[in-house]
């Protein structure tokens, strides 16, 4: 089985759940307490994906980047060599969707052919305020899909990462 590895960044404002999504995907675990990330945390998970003529083993190098604006300046240097990104927003904070455009611009400057998937996280919470029509429109503008995820329950987390993985192997 052919093996490939790809660098994938998790992008989004602080406290939208980027670290929790990675933790759920890689370790199938969840920590309810918020802990801000500074800099970058790299994790690795291998998934097997179907391709036209069989299967491929894709090692995803997941770059969990700090979302706080203090790290904006150094973010661009971390994006180098990335093949794709998961754009994460928080269903309870509408402004986190608006913030994603800037991350897309940053990514495209460094990696013009990068693939994206949008994750609307924390859908387990009751006070959803994000207008889904706006999320759909944003995902459509990137020609990609949007997933309603919960790092807490695990809803759609695997699907989100695997969807991006399929885009990456199809793009090879």
């Amino acid at each position, binding site marked *: 089985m052919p093996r490939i590895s790809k660098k994938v960044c998790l992008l989004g404002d602080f406290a939208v759940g980027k670290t929790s999504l990675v933790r759920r995907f890689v370790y199938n675990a969840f920590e309810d307490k918020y802990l801000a990330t500074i*800099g*970058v945390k790299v994790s690795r998970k291998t998934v097997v994906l179907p391709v036209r003529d069989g299967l491929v083993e894709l090692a995803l190098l997941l770059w969990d980047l700090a979302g706080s604006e203090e790290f904006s300046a150094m973010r661009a240097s971390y994006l180098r060599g990335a093949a794709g990104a998961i754009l994460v927003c928080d269903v309870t904070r509408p*402004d986190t969707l608006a913030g994603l455009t800037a991350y897309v611009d940053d990514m495209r400057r460094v990696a013009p052919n990068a693939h994206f998937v949008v994750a609307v996280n924390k859908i387990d919470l009751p006070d959803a305020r994000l207008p889904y029509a706006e999320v759909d429109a944003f995902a459509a503008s990137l020609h990609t899909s949007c997933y309603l995820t919960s790092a807490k329950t695990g809803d759609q987390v695997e699907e989100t990462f695997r969807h991006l993985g399929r885009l990456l192997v199809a793009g090879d």
Partner: protein
Amino acid sequence: MTPSLFERLLSALRITYAITDARFCIVEVGGAPSAYLCPDHLGMPVTDVLPELIGYEAVMTSVAEERSPQLELPWINREMGDAHTIYLRVSLQSAPFPNQGLPQPGLFVTLEDVTSQGVAQQQVTHSRNELRLLRDELAQRNLALEAANIELHHLDDLKSQFIEVAAHELRTPLTTLSGFLEMLLEELPGPLTTEQRHYLSVMDESAQRLQAIIDELLEITRIDAGRLQLTLRPLDIVRLAQDVIAYFEPQITTRKLLVTMGSDGTLPLALCDPKRVTQILGNLVSNAVKYTPFGGHIHIRVALASEPHYIEVSVTDDGIGIPSEEQGRIFDRFFRARTAAQTDAPGTGLGLSITRSLVELHGGRIWFESEVGKGSTFHVTLPTFDADNEFS
């Protein structure tokens, strides 16, 4: 072998280094001992040891060939086995010295353990982010409160409009009723028996009471709507207080009350609306009369207030008093103290609320002291008429 000064310095600074060949395989490791970069890694591609460098291959070549300046990755997080995170600063430069006899240039990779700074930075960032979340949540709640407030104002307006219309509609037939009652009591249509007079007197008192309630309701709606305007003019408060006492003379006599009055020498004139101040003092004296037992004592004092440019009027009684636990609510609308409600004296619980609004409209204050069974003193301040006064 004794470590060199260079090695000792690197250990003290918690810096580990590696030198790679041109294919970026590690050919030398030194500096502070660490689990993440050690002699066991010799011969391994540096990207295997530092996966954070995957994707930077082109940059690494460029740095090694000195076509680009050094590459630096600050705040690399590493989760260690015991669930704590260490922070590393990774720096890549072209290996500036003969590289194990290899002709091609390699990389000089340094890893600086910056965990102590990282932990502090993480805590600062964490606290800042939590504050931002709280600020956003507060903003969200403020918006919700503002919306609720607008809705409440709208409902309050509707309520006030309803009360105003209802009160006006009640007043018209009541005026007719009172007029005819007056004619009957004056025996214009013919003489009354004692029993008939008694019944008509009860009806007349009830009509007057109803009239007072309607007037209070209309007053409240005017205050709420901000439609209550003052017509200010210089006023002798002592004289006005005497007029108010005179108005209550029948009740004072019936209840055998002793009403006294005192004032500080020559007082300045007040700058007030006579009708509204009559209402203010009338309400305070009326309460004192209503809630002071037969034979009790009421004292009205007019003096200069402790704050400049104000006159203070105090109405003291030795009546039933207000329970301490209810004193905080005494100016609330429709609130009547337990001790007041237990008497036969009628009341809507609007009088003191209206009084406070009228005092505050004048720029004054109202407060009181009270003890159950011993009595109450209500104080109001009203502005004096002088050149310095803002109203003047």
